[in-house]
């Protein structure tokens, strides 16, 4: 087909002068009772996001009580001293306000989004939910049953199985991280109402709580709201013990989780790496973008575009305060499972062998630099960013210095952190798939000892 049948193109344009962007200005204030309040006025729309982050995450679960933090968090809006669950829902929803809760390893979060005209009432509800939840026994019962439903679903889903087995086999058996964040069938039964009440009393205190208020509100009004609804709250929580975060196996191992007749294998390949608060964080972010964070990353171009093994492949550090997993993840057609694993290992190895190219480095750096304002378009995203300052104890100028720190990363830095923090000698390779089809080819790669697990009968299953 001759090109003359197509309209002539203009030359590829050059960018104009970038307009400046700054992360929204915010004011941090601590109440006399220790509660931290951060207010970021953002006046573009009449919306306010209020986010409470509490240092009561899953790492606070005692051994045998895994899932307690998450159960407590889910139960916060199931009733308070003055309202039952439906009254609470009605009060919020009649005003169009949404309340969502979530619990992760290092924190629990309660987030409300409301029109700015309704923020007073949103705060009143937030205060009740955090300070005086009633934890009705019947609702706790239902939430435990819902957890059982979640577990049943998780075990029937190859993606879910891959994730839970990866955590299980990655971390030492004594580590909280080797168990499910939401607990399993046994641990959730131990989460009695007494335990729930005790957990809340112990860990939901002003000293462990920070409020992020972002949107159409002034600093003065935001702080005043916090003082009005939380000022007379008292109490401190015990210090958090450092969680066990060492890796289970010190050598590379292959773990096949049997799923009969699976048309695809779900792969998770990685190891325990460094904590979030590490001097090498920025070079690691850039390194990961090149290895598996961008569409044009080495892993994705290799597995998807060059070999067509998969719809997508990526890698990530699953950051937490403790030593965090590095994980490469993809789903590939059953027949190419072993080949795909070989490619993943080779990419993890290759990025440690020599410096990444100028093109790769500039792609990663200019992406991370340029995309920054797009990450924070909404009040909820800004609130989430501010919550990370709290959770990971980052300095207040973190966002203002972010882009410069990304731009400062060199190819030598990338090589150094790849050599220091990526370790092909202790990869845990988890594969959920048709064991009959994949076990032999996987063993033939020779990456390490191979074990097959049957999730239906595995007594040690996550």
């Amino acid at each position, binding site marked *: 087909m001759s090109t003359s049948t197509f*309209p002539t193109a*203009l030359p590829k344009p050059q*960018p104009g*002068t*970038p307009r400046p962007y700054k992360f929204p200005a915010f004011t941090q204030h601590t109440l006399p009772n220790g509660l931290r309040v951060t207010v970021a006025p953002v006046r573009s729309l009449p919306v306010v996001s209020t986010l409470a982050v509490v240092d009561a995450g899953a790492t606070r679960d005692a051994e045998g009580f895994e899932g307690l933090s998450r159960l407590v968090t889910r139960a916060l809006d199931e009733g308070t001293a003055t309202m039952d669950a439906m009254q609470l829902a009605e009060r919020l929803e009649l005003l169009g306000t949404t309340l969502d809760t979530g619990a992760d390893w290092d924190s629990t979060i309660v987030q409300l989004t409301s029109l700015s005209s309704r923020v007073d009432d949103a705060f009143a509800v937030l205060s009740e939910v955090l300070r005086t939840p009633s934890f009705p026994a019947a*609702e706790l019962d239902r939430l435990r049953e819902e957890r059982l439903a979640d577990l049943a679903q998780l075990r029937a889903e190859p993606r879910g199985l891959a994730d839970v087995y990866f955590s299980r086999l990655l971390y030492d058996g004594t580590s909280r991280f080797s168990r499910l964040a939401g607990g399993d069938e046994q641990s959730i039964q131990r989460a009695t109402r007494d335990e729930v009440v005790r957990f809340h009393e112990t860990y939901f205190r002003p000293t462990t709580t920070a409020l992020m208020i972002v949107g159409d509100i002034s600093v003065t009004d935001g702080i005043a709201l916090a003082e009005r609804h939380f000022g007379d709250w008292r109490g401190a929580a015990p210090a958090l013990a450092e969680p066990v975060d060492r890796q289970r196996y010190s050598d590379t191992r292959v773990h096949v989780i049997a799923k009969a007749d699976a048309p695809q294998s779900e792969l998770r390949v990685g190891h325990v790496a460094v904590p979030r608060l590490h001097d090498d964080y920025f070079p690691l972010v850039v390194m990961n973008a090149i290895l598996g964070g*961008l569409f044009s990353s080495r892993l994705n171009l290799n597995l998807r575009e060059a070999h067509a093994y998969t719809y997508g492949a990526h890698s990530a550090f699953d950051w937490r305060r403790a030593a965090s997993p590095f994980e490469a993840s993809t789903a590939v057609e059953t027949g190419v499972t072993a080949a795909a694993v070989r490619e993943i290992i080779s990419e993890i190895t290759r990025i440690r062998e020599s410096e990444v190219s100028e093109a790769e480095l500039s792609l990663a750096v200019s*992406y991370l630099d340029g995309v920054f304002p797009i990450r924070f378009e909404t009040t909820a995203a800004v609130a989430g960013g501010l919550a990370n300052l709290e959770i990971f104890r980052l300095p207040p100028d973190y966002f203002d210095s972010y882009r410069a720190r990304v731009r400062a990363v060199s190819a030598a830095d990338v090589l150094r952190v790849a050599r220091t923090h990526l370790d092909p000698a202790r990869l845990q390779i988890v594969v959920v798939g048709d064991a009959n089809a994949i076990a032999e080819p996987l063993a033939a790669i020779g990456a390490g000892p191979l074990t097959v697990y049957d999730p239906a009968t595995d007594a040690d299953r996550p």
Partner: protein
Amino acid sequence: MQIPVSTHRLPNGLVVVLSEDHTAPIVAVNLWYHVGSANERLDRTGFAHLFEHMLFQGSQNVEANEHFELVQRAGGTLNGSTWLDRTNYYETVPSNQLALALWLEADRMGRLIPGMTQAKLDTQRDVVKNERRWTVDNQPYGSWWEKLPALCFPDTHPFHHSLIGSMEHLSDATLEDVADFFRTYYTPDNAVLTIAGDFDPADAMALVEAHFGPIPRGAGRPPLAPMDLPPTFGATLRETVEDDVALPRLFVASRSPVFGSDGYYAASIAAAILGLRTGSRLERSLVREQRIASQASAFTYDLAKGSDLFVVDVTAMPGITAEQLTEATLRELDRMQQEGVTDREVARAVALVETAFVVGLQSVAERADQLSRFATYFGDATIANTQVDRYRAISAADVTRFARERLGADNRALLLYVPAERTDDASNSEMLVEAGA
């Protein structure tokens, strides 16, 4: 809340919608092509979606994989999606990169074919097959995406067949099919281009004219097969699927008024009353009071042609049978159909919709997509600004009428997933029931 909107039309038929907002130095570029799976040949199911993949493989002046790289290098995010009756492509970039985004979209609108090779088609075919495996074949309940439309639309109806397509049809797709499809549907007169965010309107229009102006209009797209349908199925349709799933899950679909029609807003409110968030009827009754469902929601597909679908989606609690789940769900539909809804329920639903609308406006990409949507379906992007008012105008009587006319047993399609019989599953579910007792 009003989004600023101005609309222009190039001589070649391209509709251009502009919406300025200088809050952040970013700009969203969004392109809707008025083509989707509904336009596919029936022996080429999944082709519109496969074609969408090809759009990212380069064009005359863009190398293989360069499209993604150029946008990400510019600090932008991007993607595309295929739906039953439209395909969209979108990127959000720093505002000083607007020209690049427009240049890329124009190159693939005007000069895609020189970039198309057999090797690229073969690769994307395999990528899409893997996408199918990942979202449908290897995912519990994954097939509902194709089974529900197949149940709800007659065989010959353009919405009947699978959006992601069958493996066989994907294998049959040829490079000639790609060229045909491109010439027929990827023309400026079949597209809406929206730009939302930080830009100067005069500069932006000059860029649009320079990059898109020379692209000739198409020969006109062939009409779709007749889309009109009776307002009800005329019966209760049923399909039961035994699948590798842990818990029974039921979808109940009803024919409902098309997106944008008066009846649509009543249907949308009904879905919110029935199944949006904690205060909804399904959550209250099925999840909390009866503890029959572990998850329950209701929503509309938002189809703008032929018929929309009003869908209830419920998953059983462990130990609850498919029959119990079905009976309880249908009872809720019966109740709404017979008794209607209250003012208070409508007020709640409208409040939630209103807040969601305002919150959604924060994203320039979301804004741009809404504007493209209304421009494509109704020829008028400003309709986006009337949505909240249309919801506010809905009364309990409107919703009650919708429920009476559409939520009865003469207008239900039940798609039920049940765990396949397996000894493994039996021992698992026993253990789970014991633990929960």
